[in-house]
């Protein structure tokens, strides 16, 4: 009994340690294991997107026996926390190239050069898309799906009823919206709210304007942080947006109040009302999927369609902002490599394309795979764009992008404050790109 005379603490340890061991053994047993291995994937997709991704990887699992353990969360902190703690997933969705550069700089992303077949990549993807996934010449990211921004959605029946022409140039657009306003309806439906990321739909407007007004080189500098927000070009872009659209009384249904408080996806609903409360909605290609989800009775092309946002200056005609869902590899395992190789193939990309709501940058994806003519049109624009630039917000560091979103909200609330808003953005720019 002499051993019991030791201090209580050690006895605690002799209780706790076997207890923990038991718990760990139990815990490990409740985990899953398979002979072929598994790949852990972390991304923001939920709902139908999650279903589409699982459908995309199903042939891979069927063929190789490798299980996919998918974790979905819209909270970006989960990925960064796990990376910092040394417990990253094998593969993860990255919010954008900006974040990708950050992670690559920290050395957290595994180079995909040895993983992907470079000749196949070269034949499947335009060089711009491959470059977007590279850091310092090394490929670190691939695009699972892509989207086209800067489209204007409208209801063909509404336009036909009033014999409104589809605008081809900027002046056409301004003339059209004046006509609509004089006809007694607000031309635009805009919604800036989006859970956790309020403001991003407004930034899409600004990006379009910067690209087609100031041009691609200014756009590139702006995204890279070498163009000041207070510079004439960027300030003019904001003002163009403000004076022509959002700050013009009666040009947006519900005005600033509705813009700030309405979720972007819900904001287009008044366009389908009888009589319509607005005629146009500026949004990306994935909006078509949202229209159908909200009202399954709607049919693409007949019930809703799009025209590309006209360029501000004709010199920058053909300029389009594109975006995409980026994937990176954090752990080098045979299974992870195999999955990465699979995900870039036309076969894999076609699966999601067929289910709708996604465009693929892979040139080998048959246009016939797209579920409707509308998506085919969008895919054609994506692949054939003369001046394609990736979403500037996603290229910026997260701190800059967040500030951009907030700036848009502030601008809509207080257009007179533009100078101080831009000065604040400059301050953040200095800090964020370090």
């Amino acid at each position, binding site marked *: 009994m002499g051993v019991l005379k030791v201090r209580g603490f050690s006895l605690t340890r002799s209780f706790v340690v076997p207890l923990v061991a038991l718990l760990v053994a139990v815990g490990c047993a409740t985990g899953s294991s398979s002979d072929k291995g598994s790949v852990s994937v972390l991304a923001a997709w939920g709902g139908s997107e999650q279903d589409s991704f699982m459908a995309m990887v199903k042939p891979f699992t069927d063929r190789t026996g490798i299980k996919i353990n998918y974790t979905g969360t819209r909270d970006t902190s989960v990925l960064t926390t796990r990376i910092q703690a040394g417990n990253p997933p094998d593969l993860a969705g990255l919010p954008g190239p900006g974040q990708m550069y950050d992670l690559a700089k920290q050395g957290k992303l595994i180079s995909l050069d040895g993983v992907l077949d470079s000749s196949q990549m070269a034949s499947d993807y335009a060089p711009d898309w491959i470059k977007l996934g590279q850091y310092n010449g090394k490929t670190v990211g691939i695009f699972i799906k892509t989207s086209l921004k800067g489209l204007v959605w409208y209801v063909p029946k509404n336009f036909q009823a009033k014999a409104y022409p589809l605008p081809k140039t900027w002046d056409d657009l301004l003339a059209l919206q004046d006509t609509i306003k004089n006809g007694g309806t607000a031309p635009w439906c805009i919604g800036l709210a989006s859970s956790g990321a309020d403001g991003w739909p407004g930034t899409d407007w600004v990006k379009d304007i910067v690209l087609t007004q100031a041009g691609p080189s200014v756009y590139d500098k702006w995204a890279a942080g070498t163009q000041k927000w207070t510079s004439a070009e960027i300030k003019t872009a904001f003002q163009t947006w403000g004076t022509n659209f959002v700050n013009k009384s009666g040009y947006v249904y519900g005005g600033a*109040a509705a813009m700030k408080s309405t979720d972007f996806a819900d904001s287009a609903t008044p366009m389908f009302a009888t009589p319509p409360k607005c005629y146009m909605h500026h949004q990306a290609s994935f909006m078509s999927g949202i229209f159908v989800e909200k009202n399954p009775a709607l049919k693409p092309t007949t019930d809703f369609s799009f025209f590309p946002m006209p360029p501000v200056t004709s010199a920058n005609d053909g300029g389009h902002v594109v975006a995409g869902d980026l994937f990176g590899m954090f752990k080098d395992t045979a299974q992870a490599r195999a999955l990465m190789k699979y995900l870039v193939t036309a076969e894999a990309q076609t699966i999601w394309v067929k289910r709708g709501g996604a465009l693929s940058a892979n040139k080998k994806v048959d246009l016939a795979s797209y579920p409707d003519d509308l998506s085919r049109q969008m895919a054609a624009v994506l692949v054939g764009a003369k001046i394609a630039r990736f979403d500037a917000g996603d290229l910026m560091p997260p701190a800059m992008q967040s500030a951009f979103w907030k700036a848009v909200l502030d601008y809509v609330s207080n257009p007179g404050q533009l100078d101080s808003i831009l000065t604040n953005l400059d301050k953040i720019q200095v800090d964020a790109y370090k």
Partner: protein
Amino acid sequence: MDIFQLLTLAGVVVLVPTALAVYIIGLEYVVRLLPDATQPRVRPWIWVTPALVFVALFLVYPTLGTIQISLLDRAGNFVGLANYATVFNDSGVIIAIRNNFLYWLVLYTVFVLVFGVLLAVLADRVRYETLLKSLIFMPMAISFVALGVIWKFMYSYQPADAPQTGTMNALVTTLFHAQPVTWLQDRAIDNPALIATAVWGFTGFAMVILSAALKGIPGDLLEAARVDGAGELTIFRRVILPLLMPTITVVGTTLVIFALKAFDIVYVMTGGNYDTDVLANRMYLELTKFSQPGRAGAVATILLLAVIPVLIFNLRQLRAVESRR
């Protein structure tokens, strides 16, 4: 649920309390072998150590790390209070401080406490008490995600010419014949709107704890007071309230601390936009989105410092209770 999982669950549920009880009982017999004078010095440590070990590992160790990181820059070099300087110069943080201390600390705490006491005391006197308490408690059972959905609907805005979809704006337009309001985007009222959501969510918490404390007041004490002819208000003020005061301190302290670290409701409903930001959200953004662990640590340390006055108050209460024994 497969049988293996069921067994595991049963095992843990039975094993852990048993193991802990065995630990306490076993060590008690060991302590009894010690000289009488040392027993009361050793015994308490047996009782508190398991809890302290957990707390030390899960809360103290990371907190010390956080404080340490707040003194470093991104590369890991010591920079003293530079992060604090940056944080205090950030207008976003200043707004967050204002929100935490002005709106959350005051409005949220007071309203939850007042409603909690009121409902606990009043519910105690009716026969349908359980039903009532369950209904008031129900918001606590809802996850923050669902809470966000409920109140985003409540505060929903439609332009004046369209039918309102939000309950609050429906009331405003029909009962008060006023223009609908953007409850969460109007800087003048969005903070109180968020507080209202939080009060709705947390009054059940205060009520349940205060109700449990209320049950501890002997019934014959209240009866005797009534027999003596005292009115209800007197009974409340002279009998109930003083006896509830320690629990009110505990609930109040917890609420104050929740107010300081308020996060979920703001995150889910406004993301901190339109001047609704709070310190915990800024810490979260700096840490996870902007990759600035030093600044995040500075904000977290500010929270830790802000809680000190609350602790001093608690210490006073503790000493007062001790002296009365």
